[in-house]
C-alpha cells in the first residue's frame, strides 16, 4: 500500500490537532562560537510576527533553558538576546522541541537617551520649581508656595528647611539682602512676583571654600518675573472689643544689582512680628571662643513663662511696632555694601503664679506668689556689611550698633506683701567683626577680628522691701534703689589653619583677647516716711583681662576607631581693682584645657567610648563685686573674695550594646568628676 506523504501529514496533523495548542515545552542550550555555554541569555517566545513577549527564561550556568507555554498559534518566534551577543530569532512550529542557539559576540553600544522631561528641572546641584505649577488660590506670599514644594518645610518661626536641614542662605536674584533674617522677605513677598524657586543643594556660601569644604545645607534663590520688581505687601485690618489693629506695609524694590526693602508693621492681636527680624542662619555670624555675652543682664529678672505647645497668638497680650529698612548696593567690582536697620517697640503683659519650694536641712520653705508683669522694649539695630566673596578670597566686615531699652514693671503678691519692682535694663553696644580667608600655597588661612564696646546704665527699684532694714536698723516703708553702670571694651583676634594628611587632621588656632570693664554700682534705701536716704553699698570696680591662646588639636578617624586630642592653652592675666574700697586682686596664670576622646567599635553591636577633659577657669568679671548688689526683690549678692579659680576633671567611660533587631539596648557608663574651687560662697535665705 502506498500512502501519499502529503496525506500522512494531513492525518497526523488532524490527529494531533486538538493537542496542538496545549502546553508545550521548549528547551535548549545556548553556546558561544567556541562552544562554551553562556549564562543569563534571555530567551523570549512570541507568537509569530508579534512583538509582545509571551513567555521567557534565562539560561543557567550550563547555558540551558526551559520554557513552558500554552499559546494559540501555529508557529512561534523564539529569540535569544543579551547585551554582549548578537540577537538570533528563529521561527518554529508550536510544539515541544529543542532549540539550541550559537551566539556570536557583539558589543551593543547603547545610546544616551533622555526619556522624560521633568516638571522639576535638575541642573547640577540646582533644582528649579516653577511657581505657577505649585501656586494655589489662597496663597498670598512666597512662603505659602515654598511650603508646598517637595523637600521644603517651614517651621513656626519661619525657618526654612530643605530635606530636614535648615537652609544656609536665602537669595533673591542671587543676592543675599537680609543676612539670614529672611522671613521679612519670604512672608511679605507676593508669590505673583516670583517665577522660579531655585534650590542649590549642598551650597557653600563662601566661594573660596567651594570644592574644599563640603556643605550639607542648601540655599534658596528666588527668580523674579521682572528684571526690576517693585512689589511688596500692604494690609490694614481693624476690629473691636477692645480695639484691635493689624497693619503691615512692606514695599520692596528688587533687582539683580540693587535691592531695597522697607517695612512697617504694627498690631495688638498677639502676632509677634519681631520674629521676622530673627536670625535664621548661622553661617557668617563670626563667633569667638572667649567672647562675653553682649546682652548684659546685671539683674536677675527671670524669663518668660513657657506655655508648651499652645500657639503664642492665643495668649500673647501685646502691642508691637516694627520698622525695618534693608538695602543692598554693589560698590566696586566684587564688593558689596549692605545695610539692615530695624526698630522694635514692643509691650507685653503677663500674669503668672509661681510656687517655689526650698528644702533646707531642718525646714521646708514654700513660697507662692502671684506675678504681674508689664515688659516694654524699645530696640534699635543697625548693621552694615561690606563683603567680597570671590574664588580667590573672602572678606566680610560687619559693623553693628545696637540700642536696647527694656523695662520691667512687676507687681508681686505673696501671702504677706505686695511688692512693686521696677527694672530698667538699657544698654548700647557697638561692634565690628571682620572675617577673611585667603590662600597661602595650598592651605587656607582664616583670620578673624572682633572689636566691641558696650555700656549699660541699669536701675532696679523695689518698694516696699524689708530685705535690708533689719541689718541697717531702719524701720518703716522703705524703697531699695540699685543703680549699676557697666562699661566694657572687648577685643579678640585670631588666625587659624588646618592640615590634612590621610586619616589625620591637624588644626591650629592662635589668638589674643583683651577685656577691660568698669562696673559702678550704688545701693541705697529711701525711707518713704522719714524721707531719709541711706547709702548701703558702693562698687567702683575696674577689671582687666588679657589672654593669649593657642588651640592645637589633632584628630584621627578610621572605620572602627576615632580619636581626637586637643590641648588649648591660654595665658591669662586677670585683675580687679576697686579704688574707693582700696581693694585689689590679680592673677596671672597659664590655663590648660586638654581634652581627649575616643570611640572604638570593637564589634557590630558593641562600642567602647572614653573621654577625659580638664578645664581651668577664672571667674567671669561680670560676676565679681566687692560690695553688695541687689539682683532682684529678694536676692542680694557680693563676691568679696579672692579671684575664683575653678578646676574640673571630667572622665567618662562607657560601653554600650545596641542590637537593632531585638531592640535590646544597654549602656553601662561611669562618670568621674572632680571640681576644685578655691572659694565656696554661702547662701542665706
Amino acid at each position, binding site marked *: 500500500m502506498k500512502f501519499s506523504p502529503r496525506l500522512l501529514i494531513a492525518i497526523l496533523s488532524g490527529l494531533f490537532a486538538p493537542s496542538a495548542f496545549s502546553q508545550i515545552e521548549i528547551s535548549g542550550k545556548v553556546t558561544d562560537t567556541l562552544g562554551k555555554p553562556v549564562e543569563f541569555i534571555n530567551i523570549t517566545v512570541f507568537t509569530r510576527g508579534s512583538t509582545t*513577549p509571551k513567555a521567557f527564561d*534565562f539560561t543557567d550556568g550550563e547555558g540551558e533553558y526551559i520554557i513552558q507555554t500554552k499559546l494559540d498559534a501555529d508557529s512561534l518566534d523564539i529569540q535569544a538576546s*543579551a547585551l554582549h551577543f548578537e540577537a538570533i530569532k528563529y521561527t518554529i512550529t508550536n510544539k515541544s522541541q529543542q532549540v539550541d542557539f550559537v551566539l556570536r559576540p557583539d558589543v551593543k553600544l547603547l545610546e544616551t*537617551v*533622555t526619556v522624560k522631561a521633568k516638571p522639576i528641572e535638575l541642573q547640577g546641584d540646582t533644582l528649579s520649581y516653577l511657581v505657577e505649577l505649585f501656586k494655589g488660590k489662597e496663597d498670598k506670599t512666597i512662603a505659602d508656595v515654598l511650603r508646598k514644594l517637595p523637600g521644603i518645610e517651614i517651621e513656626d518661626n519661619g525657618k526654612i528647611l530643605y530635606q530636614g536641614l535648615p537652609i544656609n542662605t536665602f537669595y533673591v536674584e542671587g543676592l543675599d539682602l537680609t543676612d539670614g533674617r529672611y522671613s521679612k522677605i519670604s512672608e511679605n513677598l507676593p508669590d505673583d512676583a516670583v517665577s522660579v524657586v531655585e534650590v542649590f543643594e549642598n551650597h557653600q556660601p563662601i566661594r573660596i571654600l567651594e570644592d574644599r569644604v563640603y556643605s550639607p545645607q542648601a540655599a534658596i534663590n528666588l527668580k523674579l518675573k521682572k528684571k526690576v520688581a517693585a512689589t511688596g505687601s500692604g494690609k490694614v485690618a481693624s476690629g473691636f472689643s477692645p480695639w484691635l489693629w493689624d497693619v503691615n506695609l512692606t514695599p520692596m524694590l528688587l533687582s539683580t544689582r540693587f535691592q531695597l526693602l522697607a517695612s512697617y508693621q504694627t498690631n495688638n492681636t498677639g502676632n509677634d512680628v519681631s520674629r521676622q527680624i530673627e536670625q535664621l542662619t548661622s553661617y557668617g555670624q563670626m563667633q569667638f571662643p572667649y567672647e562675653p555675652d553682649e546682652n548684659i543682664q546685671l539683674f536677675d529678672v527671670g524669663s518668660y513663662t513657657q506655655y508648651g505647645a499652645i500657639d503664642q497668638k492665643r495668649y500673647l497680650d501685646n502691642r508691637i511696632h516694627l520698622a525695618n529698612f534693608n538695602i543692598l548696593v554693589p560698590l566696586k567690582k566684587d564688593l558689596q555694601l549692605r545695610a539692615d536697620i530695624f526698630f522694635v517697640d514692643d509691650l507685653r503683659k503677663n500674669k503668672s503664679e509661681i510656687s517655689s519650694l526650698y528644702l533646707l536641712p531642718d525646714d521646708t520653705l514654700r513660697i507662692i506668689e502671684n506675678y504681674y508683669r508689664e515688659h516694654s522694649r524699645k530696640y534699635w539695630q543697625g548693621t552694615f556689611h561690606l563683603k567680597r566673596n570671590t574664588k580667590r578670597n573672602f572678606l566680610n566686615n560687619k559693623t553693628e550698633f545696637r540700642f536696647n531699652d527694656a523695662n520691667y514693671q512687676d507687681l508681686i503678691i505673696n501671702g504677706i506683701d505686695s511688692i512693686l519692682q521696677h527694672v530698667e535694663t538699657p544698654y548700647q553696644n557697638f561692634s565690628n567683626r571682620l572675617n577673611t580667608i585667603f590662600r597661602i600655597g595650598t592651605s587656607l588661612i582664616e583670620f578673624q577680628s572682633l572689636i566691641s564696646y558696650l555700656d549699660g546704665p541699669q536701675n532696679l527699684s523695689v518698694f516696699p522691701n524689708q530685705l535690708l532694714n533689719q541689718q541697717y536698723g531702719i524701720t518703716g516703708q522703705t524703697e531699695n534703689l540699685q543703680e549699676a553702670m557697666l562699661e566694657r571694651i572687648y577685643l579678640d583676634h585670631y588666625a587659624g589653619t588646618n592640615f590634612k594628611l590621610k586619616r589625620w587632621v591637624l588644626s591650629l588656632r592662635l589668638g589674643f583677647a583683651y577685656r577691660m570693664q568698669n562696673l559702678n554700682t550704688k545701693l541705697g534705701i529711701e525711707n518713704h516716711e522719714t524721707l531719709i536716704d541711706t547709702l548701703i553699698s558702693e562698687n567702683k570696680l575696674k577689671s582687666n583681662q588679657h589672654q593669649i591662646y593657642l588651640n592645637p588639636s589633632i584628630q584621627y578617624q578610621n*572605620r572602627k576607631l576615632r580619636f581626637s586630642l586637643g590641648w588649648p592653652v591660654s595665658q591669662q592675666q586677670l585683675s580687679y581693682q576697686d579704688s574707693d574700697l582700696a581693694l585689689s586682686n590679680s592673677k596671672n596664670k597659664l590655663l590648660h584645657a586638654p581634652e581627649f576622646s575616643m570611640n572604638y567599635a570593637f564589634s557590630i553591636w558593641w562600642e567602647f567610648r572614653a573621654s577625659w577633659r580638664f578645664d581651668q577657669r577664672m571667674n567671669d568679671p561680670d560676676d565679681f563685686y566687692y560690695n553688695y548688689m541687689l539682683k532682684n526683690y529678694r536676692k542680694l549678692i557680693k563676691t568679696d573674695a579672692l579671684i575664683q579659680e575653678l578646676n574640673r576633671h571630667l572622665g567618662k567611660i562607657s560601653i554600650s550594646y545596641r542590637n*537593632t533587631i531585638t531592640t535590646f539596648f544597654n549602656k553601662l557608663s561611669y562618670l568621674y568628676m572632680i571640681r576644685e574651687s578655691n572659694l565656696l560662697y554661702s547662701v542665706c535665705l
Partner: protein
Amino acid sequence: MLLFVGKSVSLFMSKNQYKVLLIGREAESEGRLMDLLNREEIKNYVSRFSYRIYKNYPTGQITYMDKIIPTYFQYSEPLDVFQWQLADSSTTIGDFKANCAYTVYGGRRWVAWYTTDIPISDGPYKFRGLPGLIIRLYDDQKHYVFEMEKLERYEEGVPIELIDRDWVETNRTDFLKAQENLKRDIVNRAQEAGVDVEGQQQAARNAAKKNNPIEF
C-alpha cells in the same frame, strides 16, 4: 536613583548618595579642611534613601544593604524572587516599545513596563527578571513610581563598588522588623546619637512621615 549595570553585577542606589561619595573621595585625595571630618554623619542626611541593592552579587542573589541607626545591615534574596505574569498590553515610552508585566512583592502589586529593545534584565529597586529593561514601574496604588529618565553609556568604565564595613547579616523579615523598631524608638536613638532636643523632635517628625514603606 541610579542603576549601574555591569557585565554580571548591577547596583541600584540614590543619586545624591552617589554624588556625596564622589565629593568625599575627591576631598580625601586633595586634603581638605577639617570641616569635612563630619562627612560620615552628613551622608545620612543627604538622601532619604540610603539603601544599596546589588543584583547577582553574590552570584544568584540580590543583596540589600542599608543602615538603621546605628547598625549597617545586609540581607540576600534569590535572584528569581519575582514571579512575573506577562500581559498583552504594550505602549511606547520615549522611543522604546514597552510591554507590561505584573508581580506581587513586599505586600504590593507591581506593574512593570519593560522594553525588549534594551536586552538587560534589570530594573529599579530589587526588580528584575523580565526579558528587557524595566523602564517604568509602579505599585497599583501609585505610592511608589519609578520611571527611567535617562540612559547613559560610560565611555570609561565606572566600577561597581562594595562598601567595606561591618555589615550585619540578617534576613528580610528581621530587617523590616528593625526598621519598624527604629520608628518606634527614634527619640531614644537620636538622643543616644547625641542629638539635641530640637533634633530629636525633628527626627521623630521625620520618622512619623515615613509611614508608607516600599515593602512591609
